[in-house]
């Protein structure tokens, strides 16, 4: 038994050393070249080749980032580590020093992030629209509403089930903004369901309860086949959903890969990414899921 323990311990230490050694060589050889890019030029691996992005589920789980990142990595030699969570948690992770930049969609929280010194500058770069989904027979009759606020009021009047994210995500904050002062009280108004869950789980719940839900279009379309829900309202002027990039502030947070974050932002706001974003979703869903902000 003791022998076995000793062997295990030795193995663990060996692995630990190997891991440390691996990191060392990386920093010792910063200007290592990687394979040739498509056009035949070689791309140099940057000195600090790992970029940590903290982002929201609507960008990552909808497939946009997995679609864009290979092109970015090929063009620049960086490796991107993506952490996706609700906007609240995504920002908190960055405040805790666990990200080099954030890509989120909640203006007020983003401004707070910059004002508190965690972020350098808020760079809005793309947008799409939230949509209101619900049962096809639309019991609250919101189909012809002008905007989301009007639709929400009708749902409240009819006391039809409405599933709220309730998780301080960007979508939840957008929902609260639309309710304004008339935000229902989840304790008293039994039709208003505060689910405290991610977008996918809330959509499943709306399907089960034949209720309404405010969602980003990308997540909804990616799940549509499994749900008995329809898009009932889209493109109201109060349903615009803007995404921003913010580089974390190296003066406030330790070990930020500033060059990496800058390179990523430059690439994302550049022509290559713009062309890719504009195409995204057209093939699969017949329409683009994200639009670029006009400068």
């Amino acid at each position: 038994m003791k022998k076995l323990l000793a062997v295990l311990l030795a193995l663990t230490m060996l692995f630990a050393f190997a891991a440390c050694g691996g990191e060392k060589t990386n920093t010792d050889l910063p200007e290592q070249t990687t394979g040739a890019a498509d056009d035949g030029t070689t791309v140099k691996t940057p000195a600090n080749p790992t970029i940590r992005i903290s982002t929201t589920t609507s960008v990552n789980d909808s497939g946009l980032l997995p679609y864009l990142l290979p092109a970015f990595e090929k063009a620049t030699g960086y490796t991107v580590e993506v952490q996706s969570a609700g906007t609240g948690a995504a920002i908190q992770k960055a405040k805790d020093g666990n990200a080099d930049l954030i890509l989120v969609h909640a203006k007020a929280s983003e401004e707070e992030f910059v004002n508190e010194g965690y972020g350098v500058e808020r760079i809005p770069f793309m947008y799409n629209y939230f949509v209101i989904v619900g049962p096809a027979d639309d019991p609250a009759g919101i189909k012809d509403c002008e905007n989301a606020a009007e639709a929400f009021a009708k749902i409240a009047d009819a006391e039809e089930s409405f599933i709220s994210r309730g998780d301080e995500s960007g979508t939840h904050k957008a929902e609260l903004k639309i309710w304004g002062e008339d935000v229902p009280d989840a304790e008293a108004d039994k039709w208003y369901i505060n689910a405290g869950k991610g977008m996918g789980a809330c959509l499943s719940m709306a399907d089960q309860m034949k209720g309404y839900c405010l969602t980003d279009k990308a997540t909804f379309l990616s799940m549509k086949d499994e749900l008995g829900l329809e898009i009932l309202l889209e493109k109201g002027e109060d349903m615009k959903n803007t995404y921003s990039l913010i580089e974390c502030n190296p003066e406030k947070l330790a070990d930020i890969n500033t060059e990496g974050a800058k390179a990523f932002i430059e690439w994302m706001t550049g022509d290559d990414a713009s062309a890719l974003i504009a195409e995204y979703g057209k093939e699969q869903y017949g329409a683009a899921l994200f639009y670029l902000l006009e400068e």
Partner: protein
Amino acid sequence: MLLSMDRELLHIIGVTLRMSFFSTLISCTLGITLGVLIGQKSFKGKRTVNKITGTLMGLPPVVAGLIVYMLFTRYGVFGELKLLFTVEVMVIAQCLLITPVVINLTQSVISSNAAIIRETAVGLNFTAAKRLRLLLNENRQALLSVVLNAFGRSIAEVGAVSLVGGNIQWKTRVMTTAIMLETNKGNFSFALALGIILLVISLIVNIIANLLVKEEKR
């Protein structure tokens, strides 16, 4: 921060205790009965039964939740009952998860000394009912551990209850799903505080249970 959400926190603790109480009660009633039956007897296939319950002890909570979800979904076999996203269905999912654990642990406790106790009881000319009482009484401490184990699994479980309960505020939100939600919101320290409260509740339940068993000894 904890004080500001007083009322809601109390509600969450209430739902948690209600759920854990019924999960423990039902899974232990079923599981201990079956476990005692299996543990006392030696029969063909006993090993197979133990292997099955032993395997089910490793059933991932999310999978138990998924099975119950599929059964109670609007389009599922029991969809008509409209039980999805209620505390009742959370208890059902937890019983599916915990009962095999209780059966397996109970039979292992009983198997270890059933033969000796039976011999004693027969020697004393006990009736069947008295024999059973002696058996349970002798294994009191071990069975208490089984019950507390069941309770611990129930109160700490998040995968199944989150899936079938839906973590709905003022309805099905329990301590674990609240902790998960606060973590997702980025309120890490608040989530940790909730975790400590959960541990304190668990401690109190353990103390009470131990007192009850001691009382009975007299």
